[in-house]
């Protein structure tokens, strides 16, 4: 029998705000344990939450970017459960009236564009973090993370493959980064993805029993875990077994998922409206303010870069990977550089230099105007493309203007015919055997001789002109 996978995603995103969602503490939870805490986020008796409006702003922005309807009136609820990392033993969340609902996200994936339904996105507080194996094996709780704002984004069960899940997560992350809504650092837990996976006979409308895979450290691992789980479920069903509803963890090293927790049918969060907070009212004017401040989103930008700048789909995707990179590209093009060449330099040498030194393109020492100037120097023949690589490396290191570097290092291209003729003659004199070979019909030797010319000119020979002169000299 042929099976089809049905997958829905729940993503928890830590919103990048300065202070926590219900108190004034800093959201920097990497500080010394229990230093960014106060009576409120410690859940001390008598304390009350105050909703940080910036959390609402960022949540509305994400909701709008995901084409959601923003609730004019929503409320916070208490989700009751006991756990040592939850100081009040209830989490302030949103239950039946989330801030955002009914949206979608179009993703580019295998077989083209696919629309993923966004069921809802709601605000809640992050619990603290249990720390095990400290002080002679004891456990402790670090409350720095307690009260960091979270947005939980839930999709419809619209995915049919692990690749689609991956492409969704990548697109979502890019949007969140564009919005400045989150730093999306998966290793630090600012983006946590959970997949609800079931399989069913192809053509069937009924959903199978689902399992939940969570606590996966990266998008690639998420994709692998989903892939594995789909195969596992199909195998169980094919062998006549049944799927147990449960939460499964992912062992990245062994590449297998494992049962973590059977779904207790009795788990009852006893949600009820949070009486300590007023309803969240986002009127039209507030929504409009957020909408007007939205940046151009990745999909729109990619489209524009293809259409207005003639970039390929691939280049457009790479160049729009981050908002900073896309802004940088536009700045380079704005001062007159050829878009295709600008993209190539950015994706090639500049990106390599940045990766090596772990710096973002838009934060490196080469400003867009200088990159454009460098491209200009190639175009007007001042330097060769090869020399340009050296120039760019120097620009990257010193932040100097390309012209300055070319002059300082004497890298101006040799385009003077008589000077080039002299160099060519030296090379021919030094390589009589190769000259003989060429003349006896081995054309490919010319490449070697050309390399010798470039070497003798220390790379400064105008390649086109040198090539012509060499050709002429060999044929003479």
């Amino acid at each position: 029998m042929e099976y089809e996978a049905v997958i829905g995603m729940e993503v928890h995103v830590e919103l990048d705000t300065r202070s926590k969602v219900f108190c004034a503490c800093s959201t920097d939870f990497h500080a010394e344990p229990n230093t960014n805490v106060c009576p409120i986020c410690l859940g001390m008796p008598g304390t009350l939450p105050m909703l940080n409006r910036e959390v609402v702003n960022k949540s509305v922005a994400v909701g709008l970017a995901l084409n959601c309807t923003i609730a004019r009136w929503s409320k916070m609820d208490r989700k009751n459960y006991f756990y040592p990392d939850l100081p009040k033993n209830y989490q302030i969340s949103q239950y039946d009236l989330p801030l955002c609902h009914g949206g979608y996200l179009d993703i580019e994936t295998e077989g083209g564009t696919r629309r993923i339904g966004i069921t809802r996105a709601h605000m809640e507080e992050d619990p603290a973090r249990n720390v095990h194996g400290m002080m002679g094996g004891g456990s402790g709780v670090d409350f720095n993370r307690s009260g960091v704002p979270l947005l939980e984004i839930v999709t419809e069960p619209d995915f049919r493959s692990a690749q689609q899940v991956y492409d969704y997560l990548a697109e979502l992350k890019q949007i969140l980064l564009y919005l400045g809504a989150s730093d999306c650092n998966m290793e630090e837990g600012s983006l946590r993805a959970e997949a609800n996976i079931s399989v069913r006979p192809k053509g069937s409308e009924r959903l199978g029993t689902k399992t939940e895979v969570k606590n996966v450290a990266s998008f690639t691992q998420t994709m692998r875990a989903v892939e594995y789980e789909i195969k596992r479920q199909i195998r169980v069903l094919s062998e006549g077994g049944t799927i147990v509803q449960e939460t499964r963890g992912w062992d990245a090293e062994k590449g297998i998922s494992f049962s973590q927790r059977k779904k207790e049918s009795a788990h009852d969060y006893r949600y009820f409206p949070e009486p300590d907070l007023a309803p969240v009212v986002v009127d039209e004017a507030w929504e409009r303010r957020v909408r007007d401040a939205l940046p151009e989103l990745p999909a729109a930008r990619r489209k524009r870069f293809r259409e207005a700048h003639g970039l390929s789909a691939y280049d457009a995707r790479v160049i729009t990977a981050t908002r900073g990179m896309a802004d940088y590209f536009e700045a380079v093009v704005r001062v007159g550089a050829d878009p295709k060449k600008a993209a190539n330099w950015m994706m090639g040498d500049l990106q390599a230099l940045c990766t090596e030194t772990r710096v973002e393109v838009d934060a490196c020492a080469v400003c867009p105007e200088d990159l454009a100037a460098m491209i200009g120097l190639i175009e007007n023949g001042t330097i060769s493309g090869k020399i340009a690589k050296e120039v760019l490396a120097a620009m990257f290191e010193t932040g100097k203007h390309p012209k300055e570097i070319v002059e300082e290092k004497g890298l101006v291209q040799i385009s003077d015919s008589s000077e080039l003729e002299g160099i060519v003659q030296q090379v021919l004199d030094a390589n009589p055997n190769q000259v003989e070979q060429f003349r006896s019909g081995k054309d490919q030797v010319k490449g070697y001789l050309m390399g010798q010319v470039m070497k003798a000119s220390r790379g400064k020979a105008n390649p086109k002109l040198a090539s012509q002169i060499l050709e002429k000299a060999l044929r003479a």
Partner: protein
Amino acid sequence: MSAWHERRAHEIAGAVRTGAVSAVEVTRAFLERIDAVDGEVNAYTEVWRAEAEARAAAIDAKRDRGEALGALAGVPVALKALLCTTEGTTDCSSRMLKGFRSPYDATVVRRLRDADAVLPGKVNMDEFAMGSSTENSAIKKTRNPWNLDCVPGGSSGGSAASVAADECAFALGSDTGGSIRQPAALCGCVGVKPTYGRVSRYGLVAFASSLDQIGPLTKDVEDAALALNIICGRDPMDATSAAVPVPDFTASLTGEVKGLRIGLPKEYFTSQLGSEMREKVERAIAVLEEQGAETVEVSLPHTDHGVAVYYIISPAEASANLARFDGVRYGFRHPDAETVDDLYVLTKSDGFGTEVQRRIMLGTYVLSSGYYDAYYLKAQKVRALIRQDFDRAFAQCDVLVTPTSPTPAFRFGEKTDDPLEMYLSDIYTISANLAAIPGISVPCGLTSAGLPAGLQIMARHFDEATMLRVAHCYEQHRGFDPGKPPIARGAA
């Protein structure tokens, strides 16, 4: 001239401000009074002797430097044990929080300090404010100064008893279903539950968040107005505190009620009300009529459902509010726990008293999946109807006048075996919490057994001014001196 501990707060503040008496002298008078009578009354759970004297000395020094003193200069104010203070402990009269020190001061406590009040200590209450007799305290048994065999009411029983026995100039309590007004009535003092949102709840250890409100228990209406002037007003730390302007409540005490319409809700004057209590309330109404007020019968048709609604909503909220007392971070921690689940079960079973556990279970039950709609949701709908009742009634009248409590103070143990009987102590006070309106209890005479009776006046949202005006007018013209309880007379 009466002793300082017998004086009203506004007299004390006036005298301290002018230098007629020092804050230290006043404070010592109260501390001596506590020494003299609290062994019998047992209102205080802790007395901050040295801190209070130091604070009083600082206030005197401030005056000596020529600085202006606050509205409560040198006035000793007792605090219900659930108000968070950096001084002393905040134990909510529970084993769970015995010895617990709060890292911060409640907003009302800060406001009292800013007004130059002196804080002599914490007073007893029903554990976590759950009860109507203060018998649910895990700390001690507070007695009614009018009859030491009787309860002081609750849950702010220590607040009421300390005021009645002159152990403080006034006290702060909290009122979730009558916890200020009922003990005030039973101890013969004035008690105000302000409009929900009038006073910041920041630093009030929560029982039922949508119902709790802090208020004063005082010796007269003028002191209540003075206290409200200090504690009312928007607080950025409490999202439910209202940004409604606070008038000068003392200025509203004109002594005039001419033309005011007084509503008498017929559902409050049924056979459940004993004839003696009814007679006291009717006489009080007659006093107000003599002063020119008009009376009109009104109906609050959903009154009968008040107690049921209250005992669904308040335990539901309490079950979440009290979940944090788990032995993990502060307070009582059971020593025998091996696992985390053990820690929760053992700590809660030993740390909380019977009534608190009963309400946590009740609240957990009504919020459970499958029961939520039938209980919690339905209760919220009926709560809306009760609110609507009051809106309609206030279209016909300016204030509502009722008894505060169906009975005067009862004997220890009389109602402890039957929680439902105890819950009915609050039938006249619960609705004001559900409707979020203000209510005040004013003494309206003594029963033949020599126990105080209380008159309740309720007003529109945020119209404490009219409520206080009526209460004050009645107080001025009631034609009798409520006098002092025997403990006050005997041990003075």
